[in-house]
């Protein structure tokens, strides 16, 4: 297909084209590498390129097709990973100072190895908030990742590079991590789809931890079908991650396709208001109400104790990350990220009783939410309080009050990841042209429901479509 803008295509379209011989993996990977070289100087999503590896993986896929072998589900799809995933031959930065990074990784993280097994081609590693502690990807060592839709705004965080790279056509999908919102916030700000699976749903093996009790990993992509295909390719038990509890099962992608064709009759949907409206600006409330209307939501729910859930997530995050980095803070404070080292150090000083209370409350909140899922299949809530904030912005003005921006952008995501529920962040348009995300929240293990609902919104033309500038070759 001469002139096809492969860098804008969905991952499943690329894989189909490579598998059928319509295009070579080499052609597509080269095209995306060219896009990165042209575009990333203004966005700063990548921290390292793995060009040689990408071209070798592409050559291996093309050879496979020529030999007539069965093609894998992500054949020739260019992707990139947040720089907290181990990539063989690279030092795993986790957003920190290069000089403080350990030795180069001797093997790939589990998900990187599985992506390679599925035929995907690794383009490089992506910028993030240092140690994954932040929501803006304003990184003192590697620079700010700019929002592809407005370079004066942030891409969100902590997986900001992962969101921006997909939004700017610099890879077809990416991997990120989400402890308190770090997939859903960049999805919202950058206008791409993000999946935070159930806690333990995808292996964290070979990724740098931040908060063991809350860390999740998952994909970003341009649509729900891609997320489903990537999830299917990556899911599976893994002894490297003690929390990983999900084995491969029925195809989620097949369910997504079915929903796109047949709809989701009988889906029981509720919209979360109360806390979620109090801490949402007008764009976020409008987006969440629009989605609720599209699904003919049966109820609006004002859940009790959501502020306590957010508080508990905040305390667990501060305590565990403070403990994890205590040695670094003691010995190398000056080499740590100035934007979060004091919060991390403060976290290491918190009373143990606060942490235990947070963990006990977690069970209470989980049970309360599980009771809801007896009545509803899907809950709808805004993903971020507002559209992407400006670089350097210090405060958010919200209906609930004025709050410091950096720790508060995850106000609406934190209570959900706190109990490990699967969420798809779906981007919607706003009046000012910037995207904003809505969380589609399902019961544990029901990624299929959230992804099918996202696919139905996408098929109905309700989701954000980026205004793309002319291709660099046009």
């Amino acid at each position, binding site marked *: 297909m001469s002139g096809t803008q492969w860098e804008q295509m969905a991952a499943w379209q690329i894989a189909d084209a490579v598998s059928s011989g319509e295009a070579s993996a080499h052609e597509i990977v080269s095209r995306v590498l060219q896009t990165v070289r042209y575009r990333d100087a203004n966005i700063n999503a990548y921290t390292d390129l793995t060009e040689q590896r990408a071209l070798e993986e592409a050559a291996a896929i093309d050879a496979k097709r020529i030999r007539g072998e069965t093609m894998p589900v992500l054949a020739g799809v260019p992707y990139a990973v947040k720089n907290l995933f181990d990539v063989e031959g690279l030092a795993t930065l986790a957003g920190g100072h290069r000089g403080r990074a350990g030795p180069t990784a001797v093997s790939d993280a589990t998900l990187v190895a599985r992506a390679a097994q599925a035929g995907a081609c690794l383009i490089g590693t992506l910028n993030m908030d240092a140690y994954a502690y932040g929501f803006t990807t304003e990184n003192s060592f590697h620079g700010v990742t700019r929002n592809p839709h407005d370079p004066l705004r942030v891409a969100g965080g902590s997986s900001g590079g992962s969101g921006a790279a997909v939004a700017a056509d610099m890879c077809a999908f990416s991997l990120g991590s989400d402890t308190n919102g770090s997939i859903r916030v960049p999805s919202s700000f950058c206008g791409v789809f993000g999946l935070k699976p*159930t*806690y*333990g749903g995808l292996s964290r093996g070979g990724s740098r931890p931040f908060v063991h*009790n809350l860390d999740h990993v998952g994909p970003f992509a341009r649509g729900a079908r891609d997320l489903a295909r990537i999830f299917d390719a990556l899911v599976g038990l893994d002894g490297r991650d*003690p*929390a990983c*509890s999900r084995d491969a099962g029925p195809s989620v992608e097949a369910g997504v396709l079915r929903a796109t064709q047949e709809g989701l009759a009988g889906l029981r949907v509720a919209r979360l208001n109360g806390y979620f409206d109090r801490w949402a600006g007008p764009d976020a409330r409008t987006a969440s109400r629009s989605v609720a209307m599209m699904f003919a939501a049966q109820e609006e729910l004002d859940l*009790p*104790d959501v*502020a*306590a859930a*957010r*508080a*508990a997530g*905040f*305390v667990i995050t*501060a305590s565990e990350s403070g403990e994890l980095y*205590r040695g670094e*803070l*003691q010995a190398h*404070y000056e080499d740590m990220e100035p934007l979060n080292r*004091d*919060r991390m*150090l*403060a*976290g*290491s*000083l*918190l009373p143990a009783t*606060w942490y*235990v*209370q*947070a*963990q*006990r*409350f*977690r*069970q*209470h909140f*989980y049970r309360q939410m599980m009771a809801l899922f007896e009545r509803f299949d899907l809950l709808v809530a805004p993903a971020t309080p507002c559209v992407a904030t400006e670089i350097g912005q210090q405060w958010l003005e919200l209906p609930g009050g004025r709050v*410091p921006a950096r*720790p508060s952008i995850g106000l609406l995501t934190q209570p959900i990841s706190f*109990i*490990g*529920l699967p969420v798809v962040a779906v981007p919607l348009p706003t009046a000012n042209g910037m995207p904003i995300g809505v969380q589609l929240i399902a019961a*544990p*293990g029901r990624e299929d429901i959230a992804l099918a609902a996202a696919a139905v919104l996408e098929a109905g033309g309700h989701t954000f479509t980026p205004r793309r500038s002319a291709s660099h070759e046009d």
Partner: protein
Amino acid sequence: MEQDKNPAKDLSNSGSTWRDYANIVSHAQGYQLDEAQLGRVAAQLELIGMVAAPLLALQLPAELEPAPVFRP
């Protein structure tokens, strides 16, 4: 769920208390913080305390067990 007295709120009303707390506990944790660091860490403790307040105000039933390894 029952509301309890909120210790974080009491501390957040007194900036010097958070500084004193940081000074004592940081030594116990092996840090050697200068005055400027102490001030910044105390400010962060105050922020965490404010966010934590709705949690700390709850009186949880004794039978509610913690979830150190969480498997939904």
